[in-house]
């Protein structure tokens, strides 16, 4: 961990990312989570999951826009923390909120779109966490690994929908998370087309033609 430039970065993000779970645990032990502690814990763990998912998805756009490379170095850790908090969120729901009432949990997941999208987002994160090691990247091959890990976008979008459907009326907070996610995703789309355009131009093909060719290609 303590290697290369910015040796403090990874350990610092690691320790800082554990703060909320210790704080939550301490508050729960002291009975300071309010009148409905399970709901409070669920809310906090859900918000943390979404925060880490979005943070992990922010690394590449930050590099594209500002040329920073340091976020890429903590991207895997951020993604794994997203999975860590998602697991705690799900376990709190299944174990504490529903007290492992499997029938009720199954009914919730199958009957309620709000729970279903949240559960789907969590399930999508499982293969990503499982293939997060260097060895798995090598085994899958980088191209396939990368394609698989695009599921993170879908998980984040489902996470935002889960949040929107959870609130009774005031959607300002979920919309804020959704807006950040939209900016991050559109940065990649813009960067993708910008790169293609530049490649064409550097090969001497006019931009208008390049655009036309893209269309023909996608049509074929």
């Amino acid at each position, binding site marked *: 961990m303590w290697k290369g430039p*910015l*040796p*403090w*970065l990874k*350990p*610092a*993000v690691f*320790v*800082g*990312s*554990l*703060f*909320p779970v210790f*704080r*939550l645990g301490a*508050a729960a032990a002291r009975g*300071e*989570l*309010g*009148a*409905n502690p*399970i*709901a*409070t814990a669920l*809310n*906090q*763990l859900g*918000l*943390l999951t979404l*925060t880490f998912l979005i943070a992990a998805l922010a690394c590449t756009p930050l590099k594209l826009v500002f040329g920073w490379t340091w976020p890429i170095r903590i991207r895997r850790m951020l993604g794994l923390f997203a999975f860590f908090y998602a697991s705690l969120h799900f376990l709190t729901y299944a174990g*504490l*909120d*529903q*007290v492992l*009432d499997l029938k*009720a949990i199954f*009914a*919730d997941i199958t*009957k*309620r*779109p*709000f*729970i279903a999208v949240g559960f789907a987002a969590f399930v999508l994160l499982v293969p990503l966490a499982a293939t997060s090691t260097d060895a798995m990247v090598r085994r899958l091959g980088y191209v396939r690994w990368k394609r698989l890990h695009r599921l993170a976008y879908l998980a984040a979008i489902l996470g935002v929908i889960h949040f929107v*459907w*959870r*609130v*009774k*009326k*005031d959607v300002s*907070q979920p919309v804020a998370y959704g807006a950040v996610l939209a900016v991050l995703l559109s940065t990649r789309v813009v960067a993708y087309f910008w790169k293609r355009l530049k490649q064409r131009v550097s090969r001497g093909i006019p931009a208008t033609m390049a655009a036309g060719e893209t269309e023909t290609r996608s049509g074929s």
Partner: protein
Amino acid sequence: MKLPKEPASSEVTAESLYVRRREFIKNAALFAGTTTAVGAGLIYLASGGKADSPESPASEPPKAVTAPPDPRAELAPLRGRFDTDEPMTPFKDVTTYNNFYEFGVDKSDPSENAHTLRPRPWSVSLEGEIKKPQKVDVDALTKWFPLEQRVYRMRCVEAWSMVIPWLGFPLAELIKRLEPTSRAKYVAFTTLLDSAQMPGQRRGILDWPYVEGLRIDEAMNPLVLLAVGLYGKELPNQNGAPIRLVVPWKYGFKGIKSIVRIQFVEKQPRTTWNLAAPHEYGFYANVNPEVDHPRWSQATERRIGEFRRRKTLPFNGYGEQVASLYSGMDLRANF
């Protein structure tokens, strides 16, 4: 003048070590700074953008923690025929875990923000299809009837519940006194509209002012209370001071708070949550474990202070008193 003795060469730090030490301190400082920033940022986001946890003692109004020494002992002789003997939800939870969007959408917001409400002087306008429409001061209104203690279950549409000792008088007594005409088919209630006192009204989350309503026969049911207090004291602002509605067999949002107008009307009033999301919140809003909210189950609930969920009862356990009001009605369609 005497110069201090030069240190022995063995005591002088080697330059390479000295430089490394400086780098180490720099890295340690950056580590500590980043850790704190990451941790604090996450905690801020996890608490929904609030600087501190809702339970921090500093943010708690001192008023909310002064329950009578042993409320149960004090109130026990007052328990009547409609009262539940289940353990009461602690005063602190009743007064810090509230839905009162006029003061913010978080449960802790009302107890933190409702100090801007001025519950006195307060007048209630009695209007519509009654013998003598009038405006009456809330203290005068309260003196028309003897106050009663009622220990009721309160079931929120969000699937949590409490047991609250209310202090108030039956709405039926007021209605009888006002002598409604034959055209009075419904009773509509309106909350104060004043964004200076209720800062949450500056945001268009709901169509302010809050309006609720009951069919006149529902309103006449002896369970319905106009409450002016809880736990033997005046209503705290966050619980709907100075006067609020309590309809124990319906979801909590029917219990409109800080009432300024009671209107007797011929047509079913357009009620706030029903307007905001008609397929989620019906006009009747009777507690019904069989009819789920589109987004969550109503079959079970968490009693505040309990760990395990408990089964939700039809009409919140008041079926014996109220089920006949709805005989012949499809309660799935009229949810």
